[in-house]
């Protein structure tokens, strides 16, 4: 008899949250990296004020993608380095439940970082990023990145140079998410009419749903040897 899906997912999420509250290994690294990234971009674009304003949405999403890559790698390393993933795989739990549990944990951590850097960027870039639709875009986009990132982090977990392999595998696959998220964000930040950016937000949501479904289907193959 299989352990019920929901119980397994909740067990994995609560285990990850409890471990993170104790160690702060993931959130601190992701948040510090994101903060430094924003600062570096800010200094690099300082001379060109117009370019800097136009680049805010790109800076936001590139920062989020890079910070999430760090987080996904570390989150799965915690499972792989001590063989804990094997212990989970030994249990009568469906593979998609293990994937979904890790996905929700990764999403939660990345979303916290995203919600921290929005006000930070508002201050540093002197542009209001605390807009309702922008938060919606962030919530949807981060979920898309977390889906594909969690699956690919599981796939690259036992490769020799997994820190390098995850970005190499994830960045090309994440391009449709990045493109739609940046377009929607730019439209919202420029106060463009909704008809101009809503389609990008809808596309972002559609790509996120497609990626989630694909990851769900592939998780069994990825988690098996």
């Amino acid at each position, binding site marked *: 008899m299989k352990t019920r899906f929901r119980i397994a997912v909740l067990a994995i999420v609560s*285990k990850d949250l409890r471990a993170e509250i104790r160690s702060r290994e993931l959130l601190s690294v992701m948040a510090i990296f994101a903060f430094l990234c924003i600062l570096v971009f800010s200094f690099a674009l300082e001379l060109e004020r117009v370019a800097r304003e136009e680049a805010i949405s790109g800076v936001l999403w590139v920062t989020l993608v890079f910070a999430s890559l760090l987080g996904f790698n570390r989150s799965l390393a915690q499972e792989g380095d001590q063989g804990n993933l094997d212990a989970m795989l*030994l249990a*009568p739990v469906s593979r998609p439940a293990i994937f979904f549990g890790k996905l929700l944990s990764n999403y939660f951590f990345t979303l916290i970082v995203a919600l921290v850097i929005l006000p930070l960027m508002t201050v540093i870039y002197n542009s209001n990023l605390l807009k309702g639709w922008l938060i919606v875009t962030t919530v949807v986009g981060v979920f898309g990145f977390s889906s594909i990132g969690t699956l690919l982090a599981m796939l690259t977990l036992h490769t020799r140079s997994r820190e390098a392999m995850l970005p190499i595998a994830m960045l090309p696959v994440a391009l449709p998410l990045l493109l739609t998220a940046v377009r929607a964000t730019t439209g919202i930040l420029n106060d463009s009419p909704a008809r101009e950016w809503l389609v990008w937000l809808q596309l972002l949501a559609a790509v996120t749903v497609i990626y989630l479904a694909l990851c769900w289907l592939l998780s069994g193959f990825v988690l098996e040897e």
Partner: protein
Amino acid sequence: MDEKTPLIEVEDLSKTFGLLPVLRSVNFGVARAETIMLLGQNGGGKTTLLRLLAGLSKPTTGAIRIGGWQMPTEAMEVRRQIGLLSHQPLLYGNLSARENLDFFGKLYGMAKDERAERIGALLDQVGLAKRADSLARGFSRGMQQRLSIARANLHQPEILLLDEPFTGLDQAAAETLEGLVLSAQREERTLIIATHQLGRAPTLAGRALILSRGQIAFDGNIETMSAANLGELYTRVCNGAAMA
């Protein structure tokens, strides 16, 4: 399932990593309530065989049936019956001993009360009751191994696969583990124990499999053998296989 059918059946099992054959045409059966010592040199294929039996790895060719279920395609049906003690601790350092066991108890679908009762009893049994709420990362290798034993035994599996269980244990912890093995035998559970410690083999098991170069070089009764005789047999078998 027929009473005479072995609980574990391994037929013509081979496993290759890339071009490297790790197991070659392995055949054996294990009866219910039997204890088997899996002996062999480093790299002989013991861990690979245990991972295949646990459903963590797929055979390149051949078949494994546990209780009539085909592994790994029907592994979900037998996972609850298998407990694996790996040579990695399979524990979360940032969780306490109790939290580690509670997490795995949830994955095995144990109810809250059942988990609390079982975890308390197991921690007591492995001598970690006083450290139940300490983080596993602060445990010595021996304490981690004892907690791993509790984890593998948590859901009272019918089949226990123990990979080098005595490694890193002090005398007291090794005795605790021996006690657990004997208690599992009294409960008529099936055990496969991979070890290098030949001295313990005849006291814990009636039968040994010696794996050499990925093949079973010996499969026989060791109940009446002394440790010295088993050592001689082991050397002879491994050298013979190496020369062949």
